[in-house]
């Protein structure tokens, strides 16, 4: 629609005493500033920053995914050739050390990080009995991280070669028999012997039923009975590993009482309580030498003294 022309006859006054002088004298500090006014002032900068960041993001996206993707395989190899392994970050919850690690996996400074087969390396580490779980991670640009979870020994196992030479092995909580690398002599000495259940061959097979033995060992430890009894070995000769099977006995051999028989049923707290009572009784009776304590009986405990007297 055509606009009817307005005359606008000189309504504005621009001379002395004009309001324009007030406008021009309106200094910055006297202006009313609000959140909205500040936002409007910085809005162009926010837009500029947003577009700049978007541009940078797009640039890096194209650089990393598009330009690299259309490059030749040769280019990729040559790029990776610069990433040599400079350090190995080794973490374990057990006793294995870097010396052992370097014997298992071979890494040198001439190896490129991307050339290392970390899956193969993980399997190599886990093939070692003492290692429960291994993780191998590339830490860019130049490091390899190796994390281990180790078996915890609860017994030592005395074994013999076909030539009749004795040697020791460790037994873990899961019953796994392993060589036991890196443990100090003190640790090994403190471990009680385990007499396993009727082995049919000389192979290191997992020992059954240690999930029943571990709770008993923990209770003995908590009650301070390992030191008090001077624990020497645990015999599983009469424990097949199946606690439901009748007549299953775990035998504890100690310096104080040569034979303590525990039932493999899961009432260890009651049996330990009886043992504590018996020990107190013995102590109060002038410490007569005890040959055997049988805690495997359901409602009572049999104590056999050296003199051949039963209570």
């Amino acid at each position, binding site marked *: *629609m*055509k*606009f*009817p*022309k*307005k*005359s*606008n*006859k*000189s*309504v*504005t*006054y621009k*001379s002395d*005493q*004009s*309001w324009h*002088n*007030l*406008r021009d004298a*309106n200094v910055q500090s*006297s*202006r*009313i*500033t*609000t*959140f*909205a*006014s500040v*936002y*409007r*002032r910085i809005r162009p900068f926010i837009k500029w920053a947003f577009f700049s960041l978007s541009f940078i993001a797009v640039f890096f996206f194209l650089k990393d995914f598009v330009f690299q993707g259309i490059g030749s395989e040769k280019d990729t190899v040559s790029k990776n050739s610069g990433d040599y392994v400079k350090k190995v970050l080794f973490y374990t919850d057990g006793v294995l050390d870097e010396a052992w690690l370097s014997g298992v996996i071979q890494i040198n400074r001439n190896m490129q990080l991307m050339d290392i087969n970390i899956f193969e390396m993980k399997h190599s580490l886990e093939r070692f009995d003492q290692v429960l779980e291994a993780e191998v991670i590339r830490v860019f640009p130049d490091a390899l991280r190796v994390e281990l979870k180790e078996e915890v020994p609860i017994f030592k196992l005395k074994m013999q070669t076909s030539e009749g030479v004795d040697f020791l092995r460790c037994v873990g909580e899961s019953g796994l028999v392993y060589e036991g690398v890196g443990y100090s002599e003190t640790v090994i000495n403190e471990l009680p012997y385990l007499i396993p259940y009727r082995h049919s061959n000389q192979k290191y097979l997992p020992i059954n039923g240690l999930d029943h033995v571990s709770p008993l060992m923990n209770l003995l430890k908590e009650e301070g009975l390992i030191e008090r009894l001077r624990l020497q070995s645990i015999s599983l000769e009469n424990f097949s590993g199946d606690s439901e099977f009748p007549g299953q006995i775990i035998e504890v051999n100690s310096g104080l009482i040569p034979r303590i028989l525990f039932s493999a049923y899961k009432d260890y707290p009651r049996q330990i309580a009886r043992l504590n009572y018996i020990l107190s009784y013995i102590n109060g009776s002038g410490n007569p030498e005890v040959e055997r304590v049988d805690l495997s009986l359901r409602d009572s405990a049999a104590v056999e003294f050296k003199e051949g007297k039963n209570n």
Partner: protein
Amino acid sequence: MGHSKIVGAIEIGTSKIAIIIGEISSDSSLNIIGSYSVQSNGVKKGVIEDLQVTGQIVHNAILQAETEAGTEIEEIYLAQTGQHLAGVFNFGTTNVGASNGIITKADVEKAKEDARRPQLPEGRSFIHYIQNPFSVDGKKVENPIHMEGKRLQVGFWAIHADNKILQDSLRVIMGIPLVVEDVIVSSIASGNALLQESEKKAGALVIDIGGGTSDFALYKDGYVVYTGVIPVGGDHISNDLSMGLRTSVQLADSLKLREGLASHAKQNTDASAWLVGNQSIGDRKIPLISVNRIVESRIKELFELVREALEEAKLYNPSEIGSGVVLTGGTSRMEGIEVIAEKVFDLKCTKGECTWNIDKDLNIPEYSTTLGLLLFALGVFEEKQSKNTNNILGNLLRKFLPKQVNLQ
């Protein structure tokens, strides 16, 4: 395609803040691209009393309007009202310099210069200096150059404002920050939007009844010859009504517009109106005659104040106001208000309405001032453009190009 300009028009009123954004193209067409209206706060009788509160609302309104327009305002036109505004008629006189009595451009400038001599008291600034017709030896003429005469006279209706109050408005706008290109008195802006040139020439009285104040401007022979501000507005009527009916101002305001001057109230004195209007719980019937009396007396008082001001200035002559009274502003929506105006002024009265094809949401009395401001902006743009154009060919071409306004 030439450069276009984004112009804002804002009115900071007692009851509402209205803003319109327009895009003026190089072919002098105007497109309205954004608008926003919000309830005002911190303004009393057209004067900003709480700068921070009002500033917050104004700045948010500008941001909202800009968001709707999808662009930023480059320059802004500000409407001004309030009782601090005052007007004075300054005359400038000169004797024609040439011995043959032919009036030259130098004589015109001399007469104008003479009219600008009067100084204002300290603390006041001129907003407008509106030129009135020349007179050559007492005879009114549009353009005296090349005419013959002895004495040339020109008059200016000068409107001035209180520096502090004006500066507060500028501080609010400039805080956003925006350049205030011009300050226009509300009544003149409304008149610019509502009156055709022919109506101005015939003489017209524009009354803009706002929330806290009522502005008026008298046009004669196409010129603004008088402006004034009455410190009575629609809010005063609503307040009186709320006290009289013991109800809230909001309900009273709604009732005022709905039934305030209902014509059947006097014919049937038993007639009643519902207070809320929806006849729900809490709504009650009110004798219509009571409402009518309160509203009518206030409206009548308001028009009488305008008439008194014009009579005092010796400008009230119904025969010279051929186009009659044009009412605008929010309160002019009241049904029957024009009947009272006709009685008081003894003139025909109409409710102002923009004649262009614009959005009906904008073609309401509340936006007439801001629309008028935008038309001023368009006029200023054309003026600047014609000054800047030195190319004769360009000038010739422009004469053949249609000038149009595309108001949405």
